[in-house]
Structure formats: C-alpha cells, structure tokens
C-alpha cells in the first residue's frame, strides 16, 4: 500500500517538522504552502565575537545566523491560526499498535508525520552512527515485510527496514512512540495576514540594518573583511577555509523567498508585488549554494585554486545582500 503521488518535502525548509507537515497539508488539503508559519524565523547574519579560530586542523570562521520561531509550539499555533490545521499526537507505543494505525491511515489515503531517529534511517550519514531527532512522512507500507516507505527531506522517497524501525520504536522515551496526524477546520482560521506582513517586513528590514556590528549586514561585511585580512596577512593555506553550516545560508534565502511569496498571496497580493525581491532571494540562494559547494570541493577535492572563486562569490553575495533592506522597504510601502 503506497500513496504514490505524495509530493516531495521542500528541500530547503529549515525545519524538518514543518517541511513534513507542509507536504502532508499539500497532499491532503490542497494547501500550496504552509511555509508562512515560519514567518517569525527572520534570518539575520550573526557573529559571536567575530573570531576566526583554528580547530581540528581547520580554519573555522565565525558567521552564523539568528532566527526565531522554530519552537514547535509556536509553529503549530501559527499553522492553526493561518491555515486551520491542527496537529494531533497519536500514541502508538508498540509495533502492533503502529501497524494498525499505519494500515488504517494509509487505507484512508492519509499520510502522516513520524518522528524519526536518523540513527535508523539508511542512506543518511547518521545511519548507525549518530542519534539525531528528525521527522519523516510515512506514505506506504509493505504488507508482507512490514517495511515502510517514507519521504525524507534530503533523500526523497526511501525504504525503512522493519528491523530498523522496530529498534527505533523500542528505544522511544518512556511515554512511547507517537506519530502526528493532521486535521483541518477552516473555522479555526483567524489571522490578520496583511497587518502581520506589514509589521514583519519592517522587522526584517530593521534586523538587517541592526546597529550592533554583530548582527545583520554589518556582521556579513565584517566577516568578509576579516577573512580577506586574515588570508592576506597569514598566507593561510586556502584549502582550510571552512564555514560550519554554510549550507544553511542558502536554505534560509530560499525559505525567505517562499515565505514572502506565500504571505503576499494570502492577502491577495500578486506575484509581481514581491517579484524583484523574490528574484534577488532566488539569486542569493543560488550564490550561497554555489559557494558552499565550492568550499566543500576545495576541501575534499584538494583544490585550493577554488578559493579565489569563493572569495569573489562572497563579495558578490555581500553586494546583493545590501539591496535587501531597500527592497523590503519598497514592498512594505506598496502594501
């Protein structure tokens, strides 16, 4: 039994639970996107002391991002208010209880969200290596073997062996394993989307222009300047250039583009109202994505020469990012 037309989970969704819920809502209720529930997750560059430090033979650069609103309760409350979707926990502490629930849900055409320890998900680098909490969507089950067909954010569709799943359920916390079911009641929708959009656009803009140099565009600019100075002064071997979690920058820019598109559509705005800003965010997503790949390739393929291109990319990214506050302001003024 398999729900073959289940959509993929958005690859760059920054929060796996919401990515899974979004895919289920798209499949079951026809909601194009629920990423606007991540609205409070305003992305801003951040530095923690601005240091460039050596660790484990590598050069670790201090640039990360600040975001809020990833708390499960806050996201689920937004989901209910904006889209009328409630998420209910269904406790299935034993394998037989899970099997019964799974069979009934899939028979009714209802995929569901399942918490998953990546230690038990073959194909992920954490498999049989690191315990890491995660979520997947269950969309099918082999009646004979008991293997599950799941959709995971990075791997797409994949199979979970019965033995792996059984071990994971057996290792669930005291209260026992539980899955998440989604239900929708339009009467639950109660949201001033336009008011919220206006307030948040102003807040995003202020965050980017944050007066403290540790935040916003100032942090990005200082990061770039420090990096160039460090490499020039110490002649640092380029292949050790490394920014932990750089992939998240490209993810965040794609997420922000989708959030803005969804939020402006909710109140009836046309795509054109955020078109230039949307294009800029799409470009930034691509540039950060390329930079992340170049850096990864420079390290793992032993190609120091790639670093020159990486520096050039970083300069272009910084210039593009500086256009963002004005475009946010223009969009806010048009609402």
């Amino acid at each position, binding site marked *: 039994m398999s729900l073959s037309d289940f959509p*993929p989970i958005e*690859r760059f969704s920054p929060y796996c639970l919401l990515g899974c819920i979004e895919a289920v809502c798209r499949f079951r209720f026809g909601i194009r996107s629920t990423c606007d529930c991540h609205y409070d997750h305003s992305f801003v560059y951040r530095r923690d002391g601005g240091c460039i430090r050596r660790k484990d033979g590598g050069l670790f650069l201090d640039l990360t991002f600040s975001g809020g609103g990833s708390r499960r309760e806050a996201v689920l409350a937004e989901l209910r208010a904006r889209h009328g979707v409630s998420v209910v926990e269904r406790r299935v502490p034993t394998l037989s209880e899970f099997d019964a629930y799974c069979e009934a849900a899939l028979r009714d055409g209802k995929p569901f969200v399942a918490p998953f320890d990546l230690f038990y998900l*073959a*194909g992920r*680098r954490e498999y049989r290596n690191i315990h890491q909490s995660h979520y997947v969507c269950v969309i099918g089950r082999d009646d004979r073997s008991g293997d599950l067909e799941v959709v995971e954010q*990075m*791997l*797409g*569709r*994949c199979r979970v062996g019965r033995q792996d799943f059984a071990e994971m359920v057996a290792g669930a916390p005291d209260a026992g394993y539980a899955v998440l079911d989604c239900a929708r009641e339009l009467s639950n929708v109660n949201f001033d989307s336009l008011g919220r959009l206006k307030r948040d656009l102003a807040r995003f803009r202020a965050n980017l222009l944050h007066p403290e140099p540790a935040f916003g565009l100032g942090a990005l600019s200082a990061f770039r300047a420090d990096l160039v100075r460090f490499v020039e002064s110490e002649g640092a071997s380029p292949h050790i250039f490394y920014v932990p979690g750089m*992939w998240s920058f490209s993810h965040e820019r794609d997420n922000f583009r989708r959030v803005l598109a969804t939020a402006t559509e909710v109140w009836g705005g046309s795509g054109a109202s955020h078109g230039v800003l949307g294009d800029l965010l799409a470009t930034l997503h691509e540039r950060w*994505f*390329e930079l*992340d*790949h*170049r850096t*990864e*390739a420079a390290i*793992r*393929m032993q*190609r120091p*020469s*790639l670093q020159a*291109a990486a520096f050039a990319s970083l300069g272009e990214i910084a210039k593009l990012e500086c256009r963002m506050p004005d475009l946010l302001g223009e969009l806010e003024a048009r609402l």
Partner: protein
Amino acid sequence: MVADNAFDEALHAIVSKYLVSASVGEALDEHRELHAYGLTSLKSIDLLLDLERTFAIAIPDEYLLPTNYRTLSALRSMLLAIIEQGPSRPAP
C-alpha cells in the same frame, strides 16, 4: 565527443551508487534533479571524485558548479565536454 553505450552505462552505474531513492537497475530520468533521487551535497562531491577516478580526468575548477551536476543530463554534458577537451593537467 559522442557518448557510446559503454560510457552511458558506466556513468549510470556510478551515479546510481550515490542515489538512495533510486532502485538498483531503475532507469533514471535524465532531466530530473539528482537530489530528488537522494543525492545530498556531501555525496555529490564523493560522486565527482568517483567520476574523476573512473574516467581518469580532472574536472576543471570552472566546471565545479552545482548546475553542472544537477541532473544526469547536465553531468553527462559536463563529462563529455571535459573528455573532448583532453587532459589539460594530470588526472588525480
């Protein structure tokens, strides 16, 4: 250079090793993004290294962009272009 069957089979076999979602022997859609088959960022670098070893080439820096290995079709075009150019430097 025009790809022959042996080239395509070798390419398909290597790429398939890095795709979690594709079944063994499954025909891959040439134009579908490889990440949809489960090719992660980390694995894409492993794939490139494997391709360099197998085809005894060094992928020039200017080709090391995600767009060149986003789909099987793009990857195939990139490899054919590199092979056609001939060795500009020793293979790794």
